[in-house]
């Protein structure tokens, strides 16, 4: 592969393609900066920056952004707490448990089950145990979306940990749990970070569970709020687009700071 990348027609075509494909994202930001309620059409560039859209968005949507943040961070914690040990257990291929291969297959199959089936089957259960309209309820449901993916992702990394490292720790007298926390987890931090990024994005993007497992307005993440917003005040485009921009910040931020994790996660596990 050539290492000296030159500016070629490909670069120009690539930029044009990116501009075309990312136009909706530009348009979202552009519209959010034109705080007009009267003007029908949004102009091409936000020459007169007007932040009224953001003012409105923050006034009405800040609690929902906070809700999304709480739910998403909670889902990341639950997801990693369950997925990391499981991934390690499943990576110990030299200590097989009969039938555990079936569990790996089950994990793959979970990815094929439509969310509406889960929501439909889960709601009566949630209703009977009082988890509807609660933070723990939504956090657990959102975590469930990421757990199989995270297990498969982290496991794919952990099976390659040299067994000599684990053996050495055992000789030093570490028990299985110590081996896991002080040897396996630190070595696996890249895959854990990838898993965390995806668990966060899954939960942050979740709409189906928010829509089906909440009904009273006690727990309304930003996606659900956007949905209600779109239905209710479509005239207030600037505020709507400002909300959309704010809700896109985590994805954009993670794409910048965790780029390599995202790329490896997409190819490693193939989700969504």
């Amino acid at each position, binding site marked *: 592969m050539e290492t000296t990348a030159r500016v070629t027609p490909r670069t120009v075509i690539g930029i044009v393609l990116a501009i075309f494909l990312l136009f909706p994202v530009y348009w979202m930001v552009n519209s959010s900066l034109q705080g007009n309620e009267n003007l*029908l059409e949004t102009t091409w560039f936000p020459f007169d920056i007007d932040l009224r859209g953001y003012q409105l968005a923050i006034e009405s949507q800040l609690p929902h952004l906070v809700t999304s943040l709480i739910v998403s961070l909670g889902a990341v914690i639950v997801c990693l707490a369950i997925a990391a040990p499981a991934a390690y257990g499943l990576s110990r291929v030299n200590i097989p448990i009969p039938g555990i291969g079936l569990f790996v297959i089950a994990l793959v199959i979970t990815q094929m089950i439509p969310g509406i089936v889960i929501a439909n089957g889960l709601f009566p259960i949630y209703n009977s145990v009082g988890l509807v309209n609660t933070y723990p309820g939504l956090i657990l449901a959102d975590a469930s979306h990421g757990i199989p993916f995270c297990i498969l992702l982290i496991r794919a990394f952990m099976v390659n940990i040299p067994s000599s490292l684990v053996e050495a720790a055992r000789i030093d007298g570490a028990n299985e749990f110590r081996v896991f926390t002080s040897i396996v987890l630190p070595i696996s931090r890249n895959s854990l970070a990838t898993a965390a990024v995806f668990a966060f994005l899954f939960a942050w993007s979740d709409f189906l569970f928010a829509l089906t497992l909440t009904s009273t307005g006690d727990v309304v993440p930003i996606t659900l709020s956007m949905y209600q917003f779109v239905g209710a005040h479509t005239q207030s485009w600037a505020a709507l687009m400002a909300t959309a921009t704010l809700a896109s910040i985590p994805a954009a931020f993670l794409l910048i700071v965790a780029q390599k994790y995202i790329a490896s996660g997409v190819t490693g596990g193939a989700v969504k």
Partner: protein
Amino acid sequence: MDADVAVASGATGAGGDSDTKAAAHAASGRAVRRRQQLATLLFIAPAIVFVAIFFAVPVVNNIIMSFQEFTTATFYTGEAPWVGLQNYIDVVLDPLFARLTWNTGIFTFASLTVTFFIGLGLALFFDKTFRLSGLLRSLLLLPWLLPLVISAAVWRRMMDEGSGIINQILRAIGLNGVPWLTSPDVALASVVIVNIWIGIPFVMVILYGGLQEIPREFYEAAALDGATGWRAFWFITWPLLRPVVVVVLTLGFIYTIRALDIVLALTGGGPANATQTYATEAYQLSFIGFDFGHGAALSNILIIVSLVVAGLQLRVGRRPNDLAG
């Protein structure tokens, strides 16, 4: 390992039996092994419980409910009378069912086909390194990372009949504006367009990964034999990429047929059910109409269709364990 063996054989020795050393060693080896297996099981157990509660139980529950009259009353009385296959019969014989099947089929097939070819084109385009290629490739991931509801809201703005930018451009070049989301004739196509936009990065990234795995020497050898350009694509790239293509199309199918967020946020299934699919109608039945029995029946039809088609795709293409990545 050795430390464990020492501890375990100490314990066996304390038993005071007169076994030979070798037998004791073998027994302690088994004990160690059993203990390690137990540790492995304890590591996995929480995940097994979690997956059981959040996947197995809802799926089973959904199957049970699909044979019951499960409505709002059930939540108060706890009674859900058995109705056999009646829910399935009702759902399938409903005049809407043909429409749902058509919409789901068109939505899935059109989205997936177009997304695949655009994604393949982009993957091939980015397969050669050029200045800014890495940066542009990552930027193109953004649409896929945004929450679907957010993307749908942005497209709703762009597709607005009166003031959206798309109609603004169409009018500027002398064409008529299109009622993208408000006309029953156009809405399904509009939803497909948005779904294509969302799916392109996923297909691109996976196929790009597949292309990167193809050894460059193959192309060099083929070039010596005079195979470049299209010939190189047909005789080297395509056959070697095929397993990845099968994975992309299978996963793409599974993720597309269940799509609910985009449809609900763009059109709510309307106008006049023009964009209603199995997934959205199952949602409407259960969570708007509080008729969980019928909702469960329809969502089970969705799961059966997606598993059968995905299974066929894999059978035609490759073995299922490719999905594990």
